[in-house]
Protein backbone atom coordinates (compact mmCIF):
# COMPACT_ATOMS: atom_id res chain seq x y z
CA UNK A 1 0.00 0.00 0.00
CA UNK A 2 2.73 2.43 0.93
CA UNK A 3 4.20 2.13 -2.53
CA UNK A 4 0.88 3.08 -4.08
CA UNK A 5 0.72 6.44 -2.42
CA UNK A 6 2.75 8.15 -5.16
CA UNK A 7 0.31 6.86 -7.76
CA UNK A 8 -2.62 8.20 -5.78
CA UNK A 9 -0.81 11.51 -5.56
CA UNK A 10 -0.26 11.41 -9.33
CA UNK A 11 -3.95 10.82 -9.99
CA UNK A 12 -4.93 13.52 -7.53
CA UNK A 13 -2.52 16.05 -9.04
CA UNK A 14 -3.66 15.37 -12.57
CA UNK A 15 -7.34 15.49 -11.69
CA UNK A 16 -7.00 18.68 -9.67
CA UNK A 17 -5.02 20.19 -12.53
CA UNK A 18 -7.66 19.20 -15.06
CA UNK A 19 -10.34 20.61 -12.81
CA UNK A 20 -8.51 23.92 -12.66
CA UNK A 21 -7.96 24.03 -16.41
CA UNK A 22 -11.54 23.25 -17.25
CA UNK A 23 -13.51 25.12 -14.59
CA UNK A 24 -11.39 28.05 -13.45
CA UNK A 25 -11.86 31.41 -15.10
CA UNK A 26 -8.77 33.12 -13.88
CA UNK A 27 -5.96 32.71 -16.39
CA UNK A 28 -3.30 32.37 -13.72
CA UNK A 29 -5.28 29.55 -12.16
CA UNK A 30 -5.49 27.82 -15.52
CA UNK A 31 -1.74 28.04 -15.78
CA UNK A 32 -1.43 26.65 -12.28
CA UNK A 33 -3.68 23.82 -13.35
CA UNK A 34 -1.44 22.95 -16.27
CA UNK A 35 1.58 23.06 -14.00
CA UNK A 36 -0.20 20.68 -11.63
CA UNK A 37 -0.86 18.23 -14.46
CA UNK A 38 2.75 18.50 -15.48
CA UNK A 39 3.93 17.87 -11.95
CA UNK A 40 1.64 14.90 -11.70
CA UNK A 41 3.09 13.39 -14.86
CA UNK A 42 6.63 14.13 -13.69
CA UNK A 43 5.94 12.53 -10.35
CA UNK A 44 4.62 9.51 -12.19
CA UNK A 45 7.82 9.24 -14.20
CA UNK A 46 9.99 9.61 -11.10
CA UNK A 47 7.93 6.98 -9.33
CA UNK A 48 8.47 4.60 -12.19
CA UNK A 49 12.20 5.05 -11.80
CA UNK A 50 12.25 4.15 -8.15
CA UNK A 51 13.54 0.78 -6.99
CA UNK A 52 13.49 -0.30 -3.44
CA UNK A 53 16.78 0.36 -1.68
CA UNK A 54 18.34 2.01 -4.69
CA UNK A 55 20.64 5.00 -4.79
CA UNK A 56 20.75 7.92 -7.15
CA UNK A 57 22.21 6.98 -10.52
CA UNK A 58 25.63 8.56 -10.07
CA UNK A 59 28.18 6.54 -11.92
CA UNK A 60 31.05 6.68 -9.48
CA UNK A 61 28.96 6.02 -6.40
CA UNK A 62 26.86 3.23 -7.62
CA UNK A 63 29.02 0.86 -9.51
CA UNK A 64 28.17 -2.11 -7.42
CA UNK A 65 24.84 -1.13 -5.98
CA UNK A 66 21.28 -0.96 -7.20
CA UNK A 67 20.65 2.34 -8.91
CA UNK A 68 17.27 3.77 -9.63
CA UNK A 69 16.53 3.86 -13.35
CA UNK A 70 18.22 6.82 -14.98
CA UNK A 71 16.05 6.96 -18.11
CA UNK A 72 12.86 8.21 -16.44
CA UNK A 73 14.98 10.80 -14.69
CA UNK A 74 16.23 12.00 -18.01
CA UNK A 75 12.67 12.05 -19.33
CA UNK A 76 11.52 14.02 -16.32
CA UNK A 77 14.30 16.54 -16.76
CA UNK A 78 13.37 17.02 -20.40
CA UNK A 79 9.76 17.36 -19.42
CA UNK A 80 10.68 19.98 -16.83
CA UNK A 81 12.68 21.93 -19.40
CA UNK A 82 9.73 21.91 -21.76
CA UNK A 83 7.44 22.82 -18.88
CA UNK A 84 9.56 25.86 -18.11
CA UNK A 85 9.33 27.01 -21.70
CA UNK A 86 5.57 26.50 -21.80
CA UNK A 87 5.15 28.24 -18.47
CA UNK A 88 7.22 31.23 -19.55
CA UNK A 89 5.26 31.47 -22.77
CA UNK A 90 1.91 31.28 -21.02
CA UNK A 91 2.87 33.85 -18.41
CA UNK A 92 4.14 36.27 -21.01
CA UNK A 93 0.93 35.84 -22.96
CA UNK A 94 -0.98 36.55 -19.76
CA UNK A 95 1.01 39.75 -19.29
CA UNK A 96 0.07 40.78 -22.81
CA UNK A 97 -3.57 39.85 -22.26
CA UNK A 98 -3.72 41.75 -19.04
CA UNK A 99 -2.33 44.78 -20.76
CA UNK A 100 -4.96 44.56 -23.48
CA UNK A 101 -8.02 43.84 -21.40
CA UNK A 102 -7.11 44.86 -17.85
CA UNK A 103 -8.60 41.64 -16.56
CA UNK A 104 -7.63 38.02 -16.11
CA UNK A 105 -11.14 36.64 -16.38
CA UNK A 106 -11.25 34.19 -19.25
CA UNK A 107 -14.87 35.10 -19.95
CA UNK A 108 -14.08 38.74 -20.53
CA UNK A 109 -11.15 38.20 -22.85
CA UNK A 110 -11.30 38.14 -26.60
CA UNK A 111 -14.97 39.06 -26.76
CA UNK A 112 -14.67 42.52 -28.23
CA UNK A 113 -16.21 43.29 -31.57
CA UNK A 114 -13.82 43.99 -34.39
Amino acid at each position, binding site marked *: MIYNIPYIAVAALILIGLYAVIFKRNLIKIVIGITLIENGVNLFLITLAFREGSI*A*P*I*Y*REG*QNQIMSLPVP*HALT*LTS*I*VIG*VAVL*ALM*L*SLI*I*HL*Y*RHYNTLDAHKIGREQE
Partner: protein
Amino acid sequence: MSGMSRIVKTITNVAFPIVLIYGLYVIAHGHLTPGGGFQGGAVVASGLAMLLVAYGSIWVIGKVKEKQLSILESIGAIGFIGLAFLGILMVFIYSSFQGNFFNNFLINQNEIPLFNEIGAGLANINTAGVIPLMNFAVGLKVIAGLFAIVLVMAYATRIKEGK
Protein backbone atom coordinates in the same frame (compact mmCIF):
# COMPACT_ATOMS: atom_id res chain seq x y z
CA MET B 1 11.25 48.02 -11.30
CA SER B 2 13.72 49.95 -9.26
CA GLY B 3 16.27 48.34 -6.98
CA MET B 4 15.63 47.12 -3.47
CA SER B 5 17.20 48.10 -0.18
CA ARG B 6 20.91 48.13 0.59
CA ILE B 7 20.61 44.97 2.69
CA VAL B 8 19.27 43.01 -0.19
CA LYS B 9 21.91 44.37 -2.51
CA THR B 10 24.70 43.45 -0.12
CA ILE B 11 23.40 39.95 0.40
CA THR B 12 23.08 39.59 -3.33
CA ASN B 13 26.64 40.73 -3.79
CA VAL B 14 27.76 37.97 -1.47
CA ALA B 15 25.47 35.26 -2.74
CA PHE B 16 25.76 35.94 -6.45
CA PRO B 17 29.30 34.62 -7.01
CA ILE B 18 28.50 31.50 -5.03
CA VAL B 19 25.40 30.81 -7.03
CA LEU B 20 27.32 31.48 -10.21
CA ILE B 21 30.11 29.11 -9.29
CA TYR B 22 27.68 26.43 -8.20
CA GLY B 23 25.78 26.71 -11.45
CA LEU B 24 28.94 26.49 -13.49
CA TYR B 25 30.01 23.47 -11.45
CA VAL B 26 26.73 21.74 -12.20
CA ILE B 27 27.19 22.45 -15.88
CA ALA B 28 30.75 21.21 -15.93
CA HIS B 29 29.95 18.00 -14.09
CA GLY B 30 26.77 17.30 -16.00
CA HIS B 31 27.99 13.98 -17.35
CA LEU B 32 29.08 12.67 -13.96
CA THR B 33 26.57 13.83 -11.43
CA PRO B 34 22.87 14.60 -11.60
CA GLY B 35 22.50 17.81 -13.47
CA GLY B 36 23.89 19.15 -16.65
CA GLY B 37 23.47 22.07 -18.97
CA PHE B 38 19.91 22.86 -18.18
CA GLN B 39 20.08 22.52 -14.44
CA GLY B 40 23.30 24.47 -14.12
CA GLY B 41 22.03 27.04 -16.54
CA ALA B 42 18.87 27.41 -14.53
CA VAL B 43 20.91 27.90 -11.37
CA VAL B 44 23.03 30.59 -13.00
CA ALA B 45 19.97 32.23 -14.49
CA SER B 46 18.30 32.27 -11.10
CA GLY B 47 21.39 33.99 -9.75
CA LEU B 48 21.04 36.55 -12.49
CA ALA B 49 17.35 36.88 -11.69
CA MET B 50 18.36 37.56 -8.10
CA LEU B 51 20.55 40.34 -9.39
CA LEU B 52 17.62 41.64 -11.34
CA VAL B 53 15.37 41.67 -8.32
CA ALA B 54 17.94 43.33 -6.12
CA TYR B 55 19.15 45.99 -8.50
CA GLY B 56 16.06 46.53 -10.60
CA SER B 57 15.49 45.97 -14.27
CA ILE B 58 16.61 49.45 -15.29
CA TRP B 59 20.04 48.92 -13.87
CA VAL B 60 20.35 45.48 -15.45
CA ILE B 61 19.17 46.66 -18.82
CA GLY B 62 21.84 49.31 -18.68
CA LYS B 63 24.40 46.51 -18.43
CA VAL B 64 22.91 43.80 -20.65
CA LYS B 65 20.76 44.13 -23.72
CA GLU B 66 18.18 41.56 -24.66
CA LYS B 67 19.65 41.42 -28.16
CA GLN B 68 23.02 40.38 -26.82
CA LEU B 69 21.36 37.64 -24.84
CA SER B 70 19.54 36.38 -27.92
CA ILE B 71 22.84 36.22 -29.79
CA LEU B 72 24.40 34.30 -26.91
CA GLU B 73 21.42 31.97 -26.94
CA SER B 74 21.79 31.39 -30.65
CA ILE B 75 25.49 30.68 -30.20
CA GLY B 76 24.68 28.12 -27.53
CA ALA B 77 22.12 26.39 -29.70
CA ILE B 78 24.38 26.46 -32.73
CA GLY B 79 27.17 24.99 -30.65
CA PHE B 80 24.93 22.15 -29.57
CA ILE B 81 23.65 21.38 -33.05
CA GLY B 82 27.10 21.94 -34.51
CA LEU B 83 28.59 19.34 -32.20
CA ALA B 84 25.84 16.97 -33.24
CA PHE B 85 26.62 17.71 -36.88
CA LEU B 86 30.29 17.05 -36.30
CA GLY B 87 29.28 13.46 -35.62
CA ILE B 88 28.50 13.21 -39.32
CA LEU B 89 31.09 15.62 -40.60
CA MET B 90 33.97 13.77 -38.97
CA VAL B 91 33.83 11.58 -42.06
CA PHE B 92 35.65 14.30 -43.93
CA ILE B 93 38.49 14.35 -41.42
CA TYR B 94 38.92 10.66 -40.78
CA SER B 95 38.12 8.63 -43.82
CA SER B 96 37.70 5.50 -41.76
CA PHE B 97 35.13 7.15 -39.51
CA GLN B 98 31.54 5.94 -39.58
CA GLY B 99 29.41 8.31 -37.62
CA ASN B 100 25.85 9.37 -37.17
CA PHE B 101 24.19 12.51 -36.07
CA PHE B 102 24.91 13.14 -32.38
CA ASN B 103 27.72 10.63 -32.52
CA ASN B 104 30.12 10.94 -29.65
CA PHE B 105 33.13 11.22 -31.92
CA LEU B 106 35.56 12.29 -29.23
CA ILE B 107 35.22 9.20 -27.14
CA ASN B 108 37.75 6.43 -27.77
CA GLN B 109 39.34 8.40 -30.57
CA ASN B 110 43.04 7.88 -30.56
CA GLU B 111 43.58 10.50 -33.24
CA ILE B 112 42.88 13.43 -30.95
CA PRO B 113 45.62 13.52 -28.34
CA LEU B 114 43.90 15.86 -25.93
CA PHE B 115 41.07 13.45 -25.36
CA ASN B 116 43.28 10.49 -25.24
CA GLU B 117 45.82 11.29 -22.56
CA ILE B 118 43.80 12.71 -19.76
CA GLY B 119 40.78 10.95 -18.39
CA ALA B 120 41.81 7.41 -17.82
CA GLY B 121 39.89 7.30 -14.57
CA LEU B 122 36.31 6.29 -14.29
CA ALA B 123 34.79 9.67 -13.52
CA ASN B 124 37.30 12.13 -14.77
CA ILE B 125 36.20 15.31 -16.39
CA ASN B 126 36.89 14.34 -19.97
CA THR B 127 35.72 10.78 -20.14
CA ALA B 128 32.49 11.57 -21.89
CA GLY B 129 33.69 12.90 -25.21
CA VAL B 130 31.42 15.58 -26.58
CA ILE B 131 28.85 15.41 -23.81
CA PRO B 132 30.54 18.03 -21.55
CA LEU B 133 30.95 20.28 -24.55
CA MET B 134 27.27 19.90 -25.35
CA ASN B 135 26.50 20.64 -21.73
CA PHE B 136 28.45 23.86 -21.99
CA ALA B 137 26.51 24.82 -25.09
CA VAL B 138 23.18 23.99 -23.50
CA GLY B 139 24.22 25.82 -20.35
CA LEU B 140 25.04 28.92 -22.35
CA LYS B 141 21.71 28.72 -24.13
CA VAL B 142 19.74 28.20 -20.95
CA ILE B 143 21.49 31.00 -19.08
CA ALA B 144 20.89 33.42 -21.93
CA GLY B 145 17.38 32.20 -22.65
CA LEU B 146 16.05 32.13 -19.11
CA PHE B 147 17.67 35.41 -18.24
CA ALA B 148 16.20 36.98 -21.36
CA ILE B 149 12.75 35.71 -20.39
CA VAL B 150 13.01 37.09 -16.88
CA LEU B 151 14.45 40.33 -18.14
CA VAL B 152 11.75 40.85 -20.74
CA MET B 153 9.01 40.05 -18.25
CA ALA B 154 10.48 42.44 -15.71
CA TYR B 155 10.72 45.04 -18.39
CA ALA B 156 7.16 44.44 -19.49
CA THR B 157 5.81 44.91 -15.97
CA ARG B 158 7.83 48.09 -15.69
CA ILE B 159 6.05 49.53 -18.69
CA LYS B 160 2.75 48.57 -17.14
CA GLU B 161 3.61 50.41 -13.94
CA GLY B 162 4.58 53.48 -15.87
CA LYS B 163 1.26 53.60 -17.69
